């Protein structure tokens, strides 16, 4: 009987835990102290970009009489911005942000396409240049030209009608392990064609891996019709193909103790490897093959069908503001689109975006995606 009672109590405790525990982490409001800190940060931001923040503050006062709007930002699982930053947005505009995350970049786009007109939220972040056209074709965004676009390199504005706003930038690059590279370090994409280097190279399946797809696009942009011969050379040389980035980097590549010394990864992998090294190191252990870098831009857009287009536009502006942009590098390991933002020391010292990356038009990518990957599979898997 006592045991039964104990079991019952335990079960109620569990239920109670479920109710209490699941409610508390949900709200993204921030406690009073962090809000105060955030307000300070917001002040700093105002000094950096007075106009934009003043404008936002003005709107906030105008809207001061109405209830605060709860904006929903739909994004992917890799996204992370600390609560203090959202508290700064709230201090500025009076509106709150709830971040709702799921899956990867491709999934976020599929979800938006599936719910076009009845969006899951007000703003979407995470559609990248390789999926951009699909989102544009499905009319999921409403245009908004942010005043802060003046701080962004024109090359990142891939939609001339501003249905999407560039927020962050990264390069997918071939990395090599400095101590393990066979022979001389490769300096060009072409160098990987040698049997020696191809045998040391790990790439990812473009259909199941975002960097894998970017690398395929890099070879197509560089070699045009000759990309098939390039891949034939890689296959003849004994290139290794894995399904995803993790298996490539931590099973095959030297970073995880694997035998391969060249891998498709990111421009930010060398600084990350230094920053999170264990034991600590004082110099980069791997390097980036600049010539191989393919530019990926991540965008935010107002989801068509939102009930709060003005507030959503404010959120987009905020995401381009220094307050937000400064948080991007160390939280998501990509570069801010706003060129006025200072980068963390590690990013400056151990890595950088390349000046002249390989790019491909989003429309061309979407039009040829299926043909290219089908042909790639024929060459690689036979």
């Amino acid at each position, binding site marked *: 009987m006592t045991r039964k009672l104990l079991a019952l109590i335990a079960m109620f405790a569990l239920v109670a835990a479920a109710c209490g525990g699941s409610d508390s982490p949900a709200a993204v409001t921030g406690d009073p102290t962090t809000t105060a800190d955030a307000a300070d940060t917001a002040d700093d931001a105002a000094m950096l970009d007075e106009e934009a923040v003043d404008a936002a503050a003005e709107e906030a006062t105008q809207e001061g009489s109405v209830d605060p709007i709860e904006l929903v930002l739909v994004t992917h699982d*890799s996204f992370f911005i600390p609560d203090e930053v959202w508290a700064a947005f709230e201090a500025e505009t009076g509106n709150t942000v709830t971040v709702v995350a799921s899956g990867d970049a491709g999934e976020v786009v599929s979800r938006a396409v599936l719910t076009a007109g009845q969006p899951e939220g007000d703003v979407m972040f995470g559609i990248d240049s390789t999926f951009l056209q699909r989102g544009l074709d499905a009319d999921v965004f409403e245009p908004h030209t942010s005043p802060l676009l003046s701080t962004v390199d024109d090359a990142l504005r891939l939609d001339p009608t501003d249905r999407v706003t560039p927020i962050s930038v990264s390069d997918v690059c071939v990395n090599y392990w400095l101590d393990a590279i066979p022979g001389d370090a490769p300096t060009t994409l072409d160098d990987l064609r040698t049997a020696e280097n191809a045998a040391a190279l790990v790439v990812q399946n473009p259909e199941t891996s975002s960097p894998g797809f970017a690398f395929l696009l890099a070879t197509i942009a560089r070699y045009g019709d000759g990309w098939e011969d390039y891949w034939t050379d890689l296959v003849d040389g004994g290139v290794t193909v894995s*399904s995803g980035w993790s298996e490539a980097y931590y099973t095959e590549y030297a970073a995880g103790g694997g035998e391969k010394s060249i891998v498709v990864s990111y421009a930010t992998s060398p600084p990350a490897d230094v920053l999170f090294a264990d034991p600590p190191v004082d110099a980069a252990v791997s390097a980036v093959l600049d010539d191989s870098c393919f530019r990926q831009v991540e965008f935010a857009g107002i989801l068509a069908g939102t009930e709060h287009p003005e507030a959503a536009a404010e959120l987009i502006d905020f995401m381009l503001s220094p307050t937000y942009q400064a948080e991007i590098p160390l939280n998501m390991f990509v570069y801010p689109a706003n060129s006025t933002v200072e980068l963390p020391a590690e990013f400056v010292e151990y890595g950088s975006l390349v000046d002249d990356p390989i790019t491909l038009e989003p429309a061309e990518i979407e039009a040829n995606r299926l043909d290219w990957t089908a042909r790639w599979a024929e060459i690689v898997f036979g």
Partner: protein
Amino acid sequence: MAASVPPVTRAGRGAPSRSHLGGVLLAIVPVGFLAVFVAWPIVAITRRTAGELGGGRLVEVLTSGRFVDALVATVGQTLVSVLATVMVGLPIAAVIARFSFPGRDVLRAVVLVPFVLPTLVVATAIDQLGVLEGWAAVVAAHVVFNVAIVVRLVGGWWAGIDRRRIEAAATLGASPVEVFRTITFPLLRPAVAAAAAMIGLFSFTSFGVILVLGGPARFTIETDIHRFAIFRGELDVAAVLGGVQLVTVAAFAVVAARLQRRVSVARRGRRVPLARPVATAADRVMVVLATALTVVVVVLPLGSLVVGSFRVGGGWGLGHWRSLAEAPPVGATRSLDALVTSLSFAAGAAVIALVVGGLAAIVIARGDRIGRLVEVAGLIPIGVSAVTLGFGYLLAFTAFDFRRSIWLVPVAHAVIGVPFVIGAAVPALRSVDPRRREAVAALGGSPWRVWLDSDARALAPALRTATGFAAAVSLGEFGATTFLSRPQGSETAPVVMFKLLSRPGDLLQGQAMALAVALAGLVAVIALVVDRRRGDGIGWL
């Protein structure tokens, strides 16, 4: 435990299970739950995507070489996975059921550990052994992940076999093999069938294992649903594959349910517990072998994690463990908070699954038409693709913003937990000797008294087994979780683990491993606590 029937004066008018109205009322909760959280989302996504589908396209997809290859591979690896898992799990189940020895409870608890380990880590461990490749490696991973289903579902059932039946056969000169073939196995079949059905459905919809261990060139229906829906943006093709998967899974569930009904056995009279202390040298050998088998299946993939979690700065230390409670070095929820979230979700999911699954089991055990329907419908959730369910929720729950509610995750976890509750509870309920009900009723027991004294006694231990599963399923669930929209801050431990593992940096890898070991420890402790009351096998009667 003696059947104590207290004197009851009020005359019973038949057990509640006899009344048709009662059956309908009982069925409302499980049928409603499955309709809202399984059927409706599937209908929603099918309606939306099938609209874009022409008849020509349907034929084109179904006759393509890619589809035929995927179907053959999926069915093939599923069948082999089921067989291999049952063969590995049965000896462990036998030892746990037949002997009482120190550490038995721990053995039964730790087999649940693989349930919560990240796919990537288990796959890497198998990969690094270097013995198996391709489909063989895929099957090995499925054995590791699913062996608990055999050990716990069949083991619990096995322990309830009356020892005297076995001993009588042995006395009559039957060899151990003959005893197993003619007495034990027929008695085990309901549980084996239930376990096989669940292993089959899990293997059918396996995703991460196929990608990592199958390598880039192998694919199944499930991985192709993802490929067409996400990378290629061909939702209509994904819908065809999802439809094929659903039909196959439903057919599978119908066969499994029929099989279970046919082999269900009533357990008559009082029984003498099967388990006995380890006495002979042969006993000891069996216990050692079963333990060794468990070690290979559970500890091997876990071992690399444990080592990795203590490997700090080229030496050994607790740094990664301490980091669980610290602010993460890279944008992510603190690991400790994720563990708390996971625990809360698991508690919520377990409670929902127990209520829904328990009621469903009672309805199923009645054996009427509603029961047969619920039996099939209850199995389907674990065979539905995460893409189908995730996108289905997205379209179905536009009202009240439920599609991004914090409750969506525990509900989705409960959907996957319900089949386990049913799988554990139905054979137990079917085993209730009808004469027992009649006896209690004849003594003047009220319908409620009859139920408490017969069915409830059979249900209780089964629900304990099921609680462990429901919690473990929720704690380890990644595929469906990642397809649901979750407010930032409510990341579960597997989601944070995935995040840490998919970024460069040794410290992040180390923290992911510490988090995985912590989650594994948690699930083992939960299983131990839930199991503790089971005593020596005989939980009922």
